[in-house]
């Protein structure tokens, strides 16, 4: 203890360690959230589709957000039932301004499939 006190008495730790790293570069994160709601001209990038699909699934009330990954199966992995699946697909339709035919929407049962469908849809916005 005496040694520790003796060492600490002669050591000065500089305060300005935080300024050494400098201020964080400004993250221009607005780009990902800035969308033109009237336009169907811009094609979505895969990353944007994945990010928005995941945020939809995560915000579903019965889903634990920590479990959601891009290739999660709604009913097998997240413990949802078929009607929850219908609700998620409807939420995805509203998010991407899509009108999915009933038979096709019925087939979408996992994040992977939803991402593929929306990414390949020409009018997803």
């Amino acid at each position, binding site marked *: 203890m005496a040694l520790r006190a003796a060492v600490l008495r002669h050591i000065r730790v500089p305060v300005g360690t935080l300024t050494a790293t400098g201020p964080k570069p400004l993250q221009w994160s607005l780009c990902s959230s800035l969308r033109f709601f009237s336009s169907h001209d811009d094609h979505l990038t895969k990353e944007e589709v994945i990010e928005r699909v995941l945020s939809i699934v995560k915000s579903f009330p019965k889903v634990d957000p920590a479990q959601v990954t891009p290739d999660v199966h709604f009913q097998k992995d997240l413990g949802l039932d*078929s*009607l929850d699946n219908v609700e998620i697909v*409807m939420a995805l339709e509203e998010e991407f301004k899509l*009108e999915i035919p009933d038979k096709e929407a*019925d087939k979408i049962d996992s994040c992977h499939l939803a991402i593929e469908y929306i990414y390949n849809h020409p009018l997803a916005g």
Partner: protein
Amino acid sequence: MSGVSTAAYVARRAAQKERVRILYRRALKDTLNWAVHRHLFYQDASDLREKFDANKHVEDIDTIDRMIAEGEATHNKWRHPDPYIVPWAPGGSKFTRNPTPPAGIEIVYDYGREDND
């Protein structure tokens, strides 16, 4: 023989499940059409879900068929006359409304005639 009947049973159950999913989907969309505000829709959607969940554990296959038919009849009766349709979809406000072609592209209306006749 029992294998065949089991397969038929499974197929019929799968068809019923699909009918229920599609009925729920249409009913949910129609609920959104009828609700004039989002906060009203949430309550209506929750009520609709309760109606479906109430008969979740019905096992008798003929009873299920009858219930689905009743549900579809009710849905048809209360269907919204002017539902929301995504603009580009058939029936939507932008359907077949194409933008004017860019300048420099010209349409020649020669009705199939060739230049050399």
